[in-house]
């Protein structure tokens, strides 16, 4: 009967619009911290590791880094990251200050071959270098992570121990997270065409080891530890020394801290 069908259609339209409104409003209420994956009973423990007992953090000492690129190389070896096209979970940047107030930044192939082949960045040849140093970079596993916020299908999430991971089975490859990351840490895996990024070697840290880049660093420029353990290196550094983070104004609450970070580092 036309009448009831009409009413049905009308109701349908109203209901749909109402639902849409609720949906939109629900999404607008933003938490100030990315919620961590639920500590479901029995599901979060693997091989005796309980993620909710840990809170991982990274510390980088820029003054120690020698730009050898071993970290970037070890990462690619460890995590089977493609060498071509250029995908980098971690890289090393070189900052060269010339006397005229200019800073030149370069990172040939992300630093995986070191910087010895290019003793000076092209732009500064012939100029006098006043100050120069290396800065390793990697995913900050932000506590208020914009990449988790924008993923349309919730394929990327934050674990109970603080690592932001990507569910490769869910990722639809829309690349919104790559746009949202202020640090350029994400990339699309060329073959699987899903998003990928540094995981602080989740498979190592859950087994009591250190991330590959931390172990590879010959001079101890990279440090890693558990903030829940007051005796860990990172806890002590955070308690005693001045640290900073990259792009603090973004409000992402990075968990990778830098010692002696120069203001020119973005």
């Amino acid at each position, binding site marked *: 009967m036309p009448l009831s069908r009409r009413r049905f259609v009308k109701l349908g339209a109203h209901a749909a619009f109402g639902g849409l409104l609720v949906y939109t409003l629900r999404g607008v209420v933003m938490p100030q911290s990315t919620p961590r994956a639920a500590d479901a009973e029995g599901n*979060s423990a693997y091989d005796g590791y309980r993620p909710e007992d840990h809170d991982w953090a990274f510390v980088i000492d820029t003054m120690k880094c020698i730009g050898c690129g*071993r970290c970037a190389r070890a990462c690619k070896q460890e995590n089977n990251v493609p060498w071509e096209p250029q995908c980098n979970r971690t890289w090393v940047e070189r900052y060269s200050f010339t006397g005229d107030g200019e800073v030149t930044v370069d990172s040939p192939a992300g630093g995986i071959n*070191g910087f010895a082949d290019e003793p000076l960045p092209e732009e500064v040849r012939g100029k006098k270098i006043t100050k120069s140093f290396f800065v390793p970079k990697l995913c900050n596993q932000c506590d208020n992570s914009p990449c988790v916020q924008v993923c349309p299908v919730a394929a990327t*999430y934050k674990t109970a121990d603080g690592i932001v991971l990507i569910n490769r089975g869910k990722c639809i490859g829309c690349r919104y997270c790559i746009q949202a990351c202020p640090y350029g840490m994400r990339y699309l895996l060329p073959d699987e065409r899903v998003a990928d990024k540094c995981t602080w070697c989740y498979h190592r840290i859950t087994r009591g080891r250190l991330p590959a880049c931390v172990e590879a660093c010959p001079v101890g420029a990279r440090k890693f530890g558990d903030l829940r353990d007051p005796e860990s290196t990172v806890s002590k550094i955070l308690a005693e020394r001045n640290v900073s983070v990259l792009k603090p104004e973004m409000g992402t609450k990075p968990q990778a801290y830098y010692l002696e970070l120069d203001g020119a580092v973005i």
Partner: protein
Amino acid sequence: MVALLAGVGLFMRTVTASVSVEVIGLTHEDNPRWWAERPVNNQSSGACAECHEATTKATTASAHAGVNCDSCHGAAREHIDLARSGQKAPLPLADARDLCITCHAGLDSRPADFPQVDPVTHGAPAAGVTASCTSCHNPHDPGFPPVIKHTLEGRSDCLACHGPDQWQPVPPSHADRTGDSCLRCHNPRKVS
């Protein structure tokens, strides 16, 4: 009408909430486990000591204590798996000079207290011989200053570093000893 809107809104919210995600089987529950079970490719000192105890011991007691075995020799997991199962497991090493230079080439950006050399002039080619860094430096026990291997056989080996135009030429007092074997007088300490 309001009640209807609220009801439908709630229904939509529930239908699309994570509860149903679990029903569809697309939860995150198993994903951390997937990541945690990735293979550990870089093994470093612990596993290497199993077969290479002496070398590992020497390295970890030397100035290269912070240098991972995998750093220079490549990710060791496959090598270890093969070796443990009794198969041949060659681990090709990149050109020694390139490996050393990535860390030890003199760069402005490197901390001043880090040992660096000018890769062009240090260990420069001698009489057609390109000295590999390992000719003089033992990568597993570089020492500081480096202990230079002197397990050399004859005069030509000595001249590679001690010849007239070389790195540490012999003093003028040797001017008349052009034909002698150096080992007649010099018996360098043997360092393995």
